[in-house]
C-alpha cells in the first residue's frame, strides 16, 4: 500500500463540502425527502439539477477534455459524505460516479459531454448488489436485438441513458440504450431515497460503446469505484447518526438527568465515535488510492466497503435505539438513514463479499 497518501481533507475538498452542504441544507430537508416513501415528490429532480448544474457535480469526474472538471475521487468522496449526511435522493453516485467511470474506462469519453453539463443522467444497468469481482449480470443479444431484463437497477428511474452489459457469443459488450426505449418498472424499495427498478431492454435500440476485455474492464472499474466511494456516503450516514444522537442525548432528560450523562450510553457513544473515525480513515484511504490510481486500489476499495457498510448500519441502529420511542416514528428522520444504510450494505457487494475478495487480494485463502 502507499504510505504517502494524504488521508486528511484538503482545503479544496473542504470548500466542495461547504457548497454541497449549504445547498442541501436549504433544499433537502428530511421532511421533504420522506415524501418519496408515499410516492410523493421530494423535489428530487430540481435538487439534482441544482447540484449537477449550479455546483457542477455531474462534471466532477469527467475529464477536462470532455467538458468536465477533471477532479478526482477525493472530491467526489466529499460530495458523497454530504449526500449521505442528507440521504439525498439524487443520482450522483449512479450517474456521475458509476456510469461516468464506465464511460471513461470504456474510452467513450466523447459521450460524456451531456452528462458533464447535467443535461443527461446515466445509469449502469446491473443490480445494485453487483460486486466488483463477481460475474457481471448481463442481458443477451438475439441477432442484433437486445433481450432481457436488468433487475434492481439503481438510478434507472432518473436516467436518460442506460449502459447495458450484453453477453454475446463474442464476449461481453457494453451498450448504450436510450431510457425511453426500455420498459422501466419501479420497485417498492427498502430505501426509497435510492429507488431501484427492473429494466427490460428487450428490443431496444442500442449501440456498443465497448467490447470484450474493454467492456469488462469498464464495468468492473465502475463497480469498484462505486464500492470505494459509497464508503464515503456510508461515512456521511454514520456521521449524521452519531451527531444527531449526541445532540439529542445532550438535551433529553429522564429521571431528572440529562440522558447523555448515563454512563452506559456514554460508553456506547464513545464506541460509536471510534467507529465513525475509523470509517473515515478507511473511506479516505479508498478515495485517495483511487485518485492516485494506486496499485493498492482494489484492497482499499474492498477494505472501505467491508468496514463502512457495517459501520453505517450499526450507527443507524444505535441512533434509533438511543432515541428511544421517537426514533421509531415516521416523523423522525432516523428511519431514512437506517433504510439507506441497510440498502447500502448490500450495494456493490456485502461486507462478506468484500471479505472474500480481500482474502484473494491479500493471500489469506479460505481453505
Amino acid at each position, binding site marked *: 500500500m502507499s504510505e504517502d497518501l494524504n488521508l486528511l481533507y484538503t482545503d479544496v475538498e473542504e470548500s466542495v463540502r461547504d457548497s454541497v452542504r449549504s445547498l442541501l441544507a436549504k433544499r433537502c430537508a428530511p421532511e421533504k425527502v420522506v415524501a418519496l*416513501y*408515499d410516492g410523493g415528490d421530494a423535489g428530487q429532480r430540481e435538487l439534482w439539477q441544482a447540484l449537477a448544474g449550479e455546483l457542477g457535480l455531474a462534471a466532477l469526474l469527467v475529464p477536462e477534455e470532455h467538458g468536465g472538471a477533471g477532479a478526482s475521487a477525493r472530491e467526489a468522496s466529499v460530495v458523497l459524505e454530504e449526500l449521505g449526511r442528507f440521504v439525498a435522493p439524487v443520482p450522483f453516485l449512479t450517474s456521475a460516479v458509476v456510469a461516468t467511470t464506465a464511460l471513461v474506462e470504456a474510452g467513450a469519453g466523447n459521450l460524456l459531454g451531456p452528462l458533464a453539463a447535467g443535461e443527461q443522467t446515466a445509469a449502469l444497468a446491473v*443490480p*445494485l*448488489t453487483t460486486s466488483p469481482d463477481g460475474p457481471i449480470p448481463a442481458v443477451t443479444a438475439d441477432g442484433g436485438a437486445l433481450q432481457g431484463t436488468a*433487475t*434492481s437497477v439503481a438510478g434507472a428511474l432518473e436516467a436518460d441513458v442506460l449502459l447495458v452489459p450484453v453477453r454475446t457469443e463474442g464476449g461481453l459488450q457494453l451498450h448504450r440504450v436510450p431510457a425511453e426505449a426500455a420498459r422501466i418498472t419501479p*420497485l*417498492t*424499495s*427498502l*430505501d*426509497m431515497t435510492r429507488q*431501484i427498478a427492473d429494466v427490460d431492454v428487450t428490443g431496444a435500440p442500442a449501440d456498443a460503446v465497448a467490447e470484450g476485455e474493454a467492456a469488462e474492464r469498464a464495468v468492473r472499474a465502475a463497480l469498484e469505484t462505486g464500492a470505494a466511494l459509497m464508503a464515503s456516503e456510508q461515512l456521511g450516514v454514520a456521521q449524521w447518526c452519531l451527531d444527531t444522537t449526541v445532540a439529542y442525548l445532550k438535551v433529553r*432528560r*429522564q*429521571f*431528572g*438527568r440529562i440522558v447523555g450523562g*448515563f454512563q*452506559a*450510553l456514554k460508553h456506547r457513544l464513545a464506541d460509536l465515535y471510534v467507529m465513525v473515525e475509523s470509517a473515515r480513515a478507511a473511506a479516505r484511504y479508498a478515495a485517495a488510492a483511487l485518485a492516485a490510481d494506486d496499485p493498492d486500489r482494489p484492497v482499499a476499495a474492498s477494505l472501505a466497503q467491508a468496514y463502512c457498510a457495517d459501520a453505517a*448500519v450499526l450507527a443507524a*441502529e444505535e441512533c*434509533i*435505539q438511543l432515541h*428511544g*420511542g*421517537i*426514533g*421509531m*416514528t*415516521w*416523523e423522525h428522520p*432516523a*428511519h431514512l438513514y*437506517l*433504510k439507506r444504510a*441497510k*440498502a447500502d*450494505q*448490500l450495494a456493490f457487494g*456485502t461486507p*462478506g*463479499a468484500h*471479505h*472474500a475478495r480481500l482474502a484473494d487480494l491479500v493471500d489469506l485463502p*479460505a481453505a
Partner: protein
Amino acid sequence: MTGTEEMIKDLTRRVEKLLAEYDPARTDRLEFLRARFDAGLAWVHFPEGLGGLGLPRELQAHVDRLLAKAGAPDNDPRRNGIGLGMAAPTILAYGTEEQKKRFLRPLWTGEEIWCQLFSEPGAGSDLAALATRAEWDGEYWVVNGQKVWTSGAHKAHWGILVARTDPEAPKHRGMTYFLCDMRDPGVEVRPLRQITGEAEFNEVFLTDVRIPDEHRLGERGQGWQVATATLMNERVAIGGGDIPREGGMIGVVADTWRRRPELRRPDLHARLMRLWVEAEVARLTGKRLRQKLAAGQPGPEGSASKLTFARLSQQLSGLEIELLGEEGLRYGDWTMKRPDIVVFTGKDAGYRYLRAKGNSIEGGTSEILRNIVAERVLGLPPEPRVDKNVPWKDLPR
C-alpha cells in the same frame, strides 16, 4: 383423588352444564360469552361473581380445551390484549366492588376494548415524569395532556390512564390512576406512524376530558403504585409461552437457508450457526424460567429473556436481509395502515428488520432492563437519583 383432580372434575361438570344450557351452535356469540362469564368459566382464577371460581390459574387451560372441542366461541383475546392482560388484573386488585362489577364482564367478553394511556413524549423510560394533569373541579377530574404509544386507542372504549394530580408532591407521589372513557369529546386519537410505514400506535390528545370520581382507581396519589402493578402484569405477558425449536425469527431465516441453496455463503453460515445456537439456548432459557415458575420459584429473570429476544430478533432479521441480497433491497408496502394484530415474524424481510428495532424499546428499553437486572438481580447500587424528593413542579424538563 387429589385436590387437582377433583377440581378438574368439577370444572368439567360446569362446562358440560354451560354447554347444555347454551348450545354453542344455536346461541348468539355474545350471549354465550356472557353466560360463560357468569358461570365462572371466563378466568377461573378470578373470584366468584367476577368471571371466576377462585381456582388455580393453570386450570383455565382445561376449560379452554373443553370449550374449543365443543366448538364454543372464544372471546378473541388478541383483540383486547391490554384489557385482559393489564386492565383486568389491575381493576381486580385496586377497584371498588362497583368498578369490578361494572367493568370486568364487558372487558372479558370483548364488548369493551381497552387501551393504555401511560407514556408521554417527555415520559418514556421515566414514566413517573409524566405531565398530563388531572384537576378536580368540584364535580369532575378535568384532564389535559398528551399520551403516546397507545395501541388500539382508535378502537378502545376505555383507557387506563395515569395523570398528575399533585404537582407539589415529588414525582412518584403526585399521580392518580383513572379509567378514562375514550368516547369523551375531549379525547382525540391520531395514528402514530412508525418506521415500518404502519401505524400500530396512536398519540392521544386529552383536552378538558371529564372523569367522574367513581372512575378513579385506587387512592388519590397512589397512581405510581397502581401503574407499577399494571406494568408487572405486562412483563408477565411478555414472558410468553413455550415455543418449539426454530419458533420465531430463527425459523424464518433457517427456512430460507434450507429452501434456497443459491444464497448460501460461508461467512453467512458462520453467523447463522452462531445465531441458531443462541436462539435455541434462549428458547431453553425461557423454558427453564417457566419450569421455575411452575415449581414456585419465581424470579425477576423475565427481563433477561426480553433482552435476549430483542437482540436476537434484530441480529437475525439483519442477517436475513444480507442473505437475501438483491431481494433484500425490496420492501413489501409502505402504505400507511393500521394493523389489528402485529406479528413480528410476519410480512417481508424488510418489515421484520424494521419492526424488530422496536423490540428493544417497547415494554421497557433494553437499557432499562439491564438496570433492572443489575440492581434487582445482582444487587448493584442504583443510579444516582436527583429527582426523588423534589416537588414535581420544580424538576428541570
